[in-house]
């Protein structure tokens, strides 16, 4: 009885359908367990959480130097930057903008450094729907390879103050 003390000999192995179900559930949990290590080694989408300690001031300086070296224009008031394929590229999250706008080449790999200059932000690439957490003090490195060309929107999906919904940015991928 669930609300009374159980009989003395309650310690009994399960049997019948209950036993079968436990076996099945255990097998399924093993499959679930193996999927993550499997994808870690064989899959193409893994955020390993590679990160380095930094400060907002240091990171802002690096972003500005990156913009100065690679700027090719401006889009909606935001500098547009075209870095060399394979290079380290920088993106700052700040109340309430993603800075700068990036122009990348399809099927080329970049080391994208993202950090916040103030509070926590969420990097959300749309309509691709890829999401990463961006923290101040953490240089979050994403080694990305855009596999489709087109114009992509970066939105912020971590609440960061009243104008959170205005915080958008651009990644343009050319084929």
């Amino acid at each position, binding site marked *: 009885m669930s609300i009374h003390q159980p009989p003395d000999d309650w310690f009994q192995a399960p049997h019948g359908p209950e036993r079968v179900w436990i076996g*099945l559930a255990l097998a*399924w949990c093993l499959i679930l367990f193996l999927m993550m290590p499997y994808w870690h080694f064989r899959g193409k989408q893994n955020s390993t959480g590679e990160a380095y300690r930094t400060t907002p001031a240091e990171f802002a300086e690096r972003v500005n130097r990156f913009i100065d070296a690679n700027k090719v224009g401006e889009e909606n008031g935001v500098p547009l930057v075209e870095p060399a394929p394979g290079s380290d590229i920088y993106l700052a999250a700040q109340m309430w903008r993603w800075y700068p706008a990036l122009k990348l080449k399809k099927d080329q790999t970049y080391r994208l450094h993202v950090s916040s200059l103030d509070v926590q932000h969420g990097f959300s690439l749309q309509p691709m729907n890829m999401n990463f957490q961006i923290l101040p003090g953490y240089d979050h490195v994403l080694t990305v390879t855009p596999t489709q060309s087109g114009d992509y929107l970066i939105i912020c999906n971590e609440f960061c103050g009243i104008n959170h919904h205005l915080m958008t940015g651009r990644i343009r991928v050319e084929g």
Partner: protein
Amino acid sequence: MSDPKLVDRLERERDTEPGDHKMPGTVVLTALLLLCFVVYYFANWKALADVWHVR
């Protein structure tokens, strides 16, 4: 449960008499759950495989 005697009776009864219970309905229900689980889970891996590569 308005009958107080029911509780007394239940309390005196043993928990489980091995082997005398049938639960085919539950087996079907949980099998359905496992099926939905497998489908939804692997559909998500499929969706993930379509996005940009990232390490």
